[in-house]
């Protein structure tokens, strides 16, 4: 879930015509002072981090003068709160509060509609308050065809026990909130507290808004870096992985680093699942075996071989691994030879020296296992493929045996391999990479097996019998070349190593280089 900071949420509220306290965000003490000077009255400084209960952590401070605001900001900025470092503080007018309310909109999975929740009591401990005073909490489904209409909002506020001058402004505010939620594709939004000040203003004193991950592409203005839920800032490797996913929507690739620290005796493994349910089940199986998981990775939804390759390269950029475990539901609908080819290219490039157990059960598993066993026999470590009738528990046990046989050897992070084909090679762009063929080597090739291997028959022999594109280059780039990697793998293992498919992973080379320097 793409969470917004309070200050970002309040910008959306203000743009939607919903009143918020005057103020602005500061990332330096001097900025905080300038904002306080401009406001010309006592201010509150609030740290901008994704934690609840900021007041109790000392993250909310008051200042009567600009100089005090500067001092307090200096203390707050750089403060470590749980997993975050404070980079910004919101500086706002200090409010004299007379009453606190609560307003939120969440998704109701039963009704398949947004649900408005309004409470005429709000503030800290709202869940407990709501339990104690159910009469003050009103819920109403919002019809997406009409939005929340004025009279509907009015009835919500009225039923919460409010009458008098606050009734109309609160109703108006709820109508605007529903529109803001829709426009921002908010999966949830809540204002707690929503306040009435002693001078009669109604203001959103705090706001949490979570943008629907799947709609983030509609909101470039929000500057969301990673549209996923983290309880800490994303790691550099997670950022690299996310960029891969962002640029390639064929199938999904999810990557989360799990182990912060590992000890030399830990049975640390790279985990490469397929599909949420099957991955969870498989993770339970390896954890039960006493393994420690370096990462949780899931490539599913029929990803191309190139995506599985990139996932494997990212997984193998983690230090300390003693094994590689891949397992999904066991009865996958996706063509498992794509996963197999992606893993073969990655493992061959890495010259993998730690054992891998790959449970690739499902559609075309026989071919997938054949690919693995045909091409990964010469690696320093054993790679074994398993199918749908091999339960994850058995595969986890097998990996433990192989690691023991390998004497617990640890994976070495290698520099990223550079393409080694000459500049004059025949070349064309694919959807996410570039395929090059060194035709001078093809002259020594007897089989021209790459033409046969090509899954979608987009390669043909030219007049001299050399492999070239059978379709326009633009078509290949648009995705007609599915990056199945079959031609490269055939050529690499059976012929002249004339084909190279470059599949860049921006940032990974630099990441590995730095890691290698640090480890020396």
């Amino acid at each position, binding site marked *: 879930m793409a969470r917004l900071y309070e200050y970002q949420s309040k910008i959306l509220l203000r743009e939607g015509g919903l009143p918020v306290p005057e103020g602005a965000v500061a990332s330096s003490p001097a900025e905080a002072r300038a904002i306080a000077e401009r406001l010309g009255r006592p201010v509150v400084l609030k740290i901008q981090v994704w934690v609840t209960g900021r007041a109790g952590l000392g993250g909310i401070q008051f200042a009567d003068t600009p100089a005090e605001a500067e001092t307090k900001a200096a203390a707050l900025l750089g403060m470590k709160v749980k997993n975050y470092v404070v980079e910004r503080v919101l500086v706002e007018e200090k409010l004299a509060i007379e009453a606190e309310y609560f307003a939120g909109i969440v*998704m109701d999975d039963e009704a398949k509609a947004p649900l408005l929740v309004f409470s005429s009591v709000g503030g800290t401990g709202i869940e407990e308050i709501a339990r104690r005073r159910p009469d003050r909490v009103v819920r109403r489904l919002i019809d997406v*065809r009409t939005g929340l209409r004025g009279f509907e909002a009015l009835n919500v506020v009225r039923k919460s026990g409010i009458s008098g001058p606050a009734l109309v402004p609160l109703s108006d505010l709820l109508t605007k909130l529903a529109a803001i939620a829709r426009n921002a594709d908010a999966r949830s939004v*809540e204002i707690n507290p929503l306040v009435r000040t002693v001078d009669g203003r109604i203001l959103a004193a705090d706001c949490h808004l979570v943008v629907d991950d799947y*709609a983030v592409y509609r909101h470039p203005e929000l500057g969301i870096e990673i549209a996923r839920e983290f309880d800490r800032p994303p790691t550099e490797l997670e950022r690299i992985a996310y960029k891969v996913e962002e640029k390639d929507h064929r199938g999904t690739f999810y990557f989360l680093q799990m182990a912060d620290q590992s000890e030399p005796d830990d049975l640390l493994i790279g985990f490469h699942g397929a599909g949420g349910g099957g991955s969870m089940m498989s993770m339970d199986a390896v*954890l039960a075996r006493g393994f420690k998981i370096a990462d949780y990775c899931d490539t599913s*939804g029929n990803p191309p071989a190139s995506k599985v390759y990139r996932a494997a390269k990212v997984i193998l950029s983690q230090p300390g691994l003693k094994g590689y475990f891949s397992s999904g539901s066991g009865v*996958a609908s996706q063509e498992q030879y794509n996963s197999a080819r992606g893993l073969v290219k990655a493992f061959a490039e890495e010259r993998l020296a730690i054992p891998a157990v790959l449970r690739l059960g499902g559609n075309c598993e026989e071919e997938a296992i054949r690919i693995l066993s045909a091409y990964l026999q010469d690696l320093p470590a054993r790679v074994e493929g398993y199918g749908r009738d091999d339960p994850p528990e058995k595969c986890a046990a097998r990996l433990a045996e192989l690691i023991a046989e390998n004497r617990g050897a640890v994976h070495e992070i290698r520099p990223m391999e550079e393409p080694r084909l000459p500049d004059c090679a025949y070349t064309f762009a694919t959807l996410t990479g570039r395929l090059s063929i060194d035709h001078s080597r093809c002259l020594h090739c007897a089989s021209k097996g790459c033409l046969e291997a090509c899954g979608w028959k987009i390669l043909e022999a030219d007049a001299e019998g050399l492999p070239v594109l059978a379709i326009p280059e633009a078509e290949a780039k648009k995705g007609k070349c599915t990056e199945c990697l079959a031609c490269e793998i055939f050529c690499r293992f059976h012929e002249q190593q004339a084909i190279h498919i470059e599949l860049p992973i921006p940032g990974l080379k630099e990441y590995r280089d730095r890691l290698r320097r640090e480890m020396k």
Partner: protein
Amino acid sequence: MAIFVDEKSKVLIQGITGREGIARTRLMKDYGTNVLAGVTPGRGGQDVYGVPVYDAVEEAVENVGPIDASVIFVPAAAVKNAALEALAAGVKLLVIVPDRVPIYDVLDIAAAAKDAGARFVGPNTLGLLSPGKAVLGMIGGRAERAREWFQPGPVGVSSRSGGMTSAVAYYLSRAGLGLSTIVHVGGDSIVGSSHPEVMELFERDPETKAVAMFGEIGTTQEERVADLIEHKKFTKPLVAFIGGKAAKSGTRFSHAGAIVDGNRGSYESKVRRLREVGVHVVEAVADIPGRVAGLLAGKK
């Protein structure tokens, strides 16, 4: 009988000329699904494995007659328009395969489907399959696998995980227990046909004698199945597995969500509620076939 689809259902494929569209058209045709037409705007006049392609759903209906079900393979950003187009053309069942469809788009589709008296499965679904009759979506991947893995019989399957839909169904078939219909309800938090809605269809299907359900943490689907059973709206034997026991529970930021749902959504809540109403909750997926077999034997 089966639920949602059988060999007679007239099927349309939207996005038929895309990578997934082409591959899954072949699966559906080979399996025996009655695929009458496909749609890709701008590609009218082509054909995919013998299925005629039209520019619009309306045009497809003009040419091949009324359509019972449309399987959608268009990019996520185009799903809403495609779904509304099919509903406007009178299609009563949509299977929305793509992942990453924005929630508000799903809500709009849900509202339009309700108005039209239609149902939808997904988004983010592998689809559904009635063994020996028809497949909608991509379950099985290839027809020969689907025929080999999924045998016809009396057990319904409903699953929140695509891969586990196939896995549970395969393990049941391997144990000699055939299947009526297997349904992947979709992996998203808001789906067109959630577990309880699928259970109501299984309840009305005379062929289905027992149901296996693969649940997961999150959403209120499994708790609502328990509510159905409590209200005697689902009365057939049910074996359930809930995934996500070991998953670290996410930090909950939404107070509104907590006010609405209370503790619903957690592993403990789901297992407790299901057991309260007599559902057989198993600890391992491998235990599902044995339990189902026992219940079916006891029934006779």
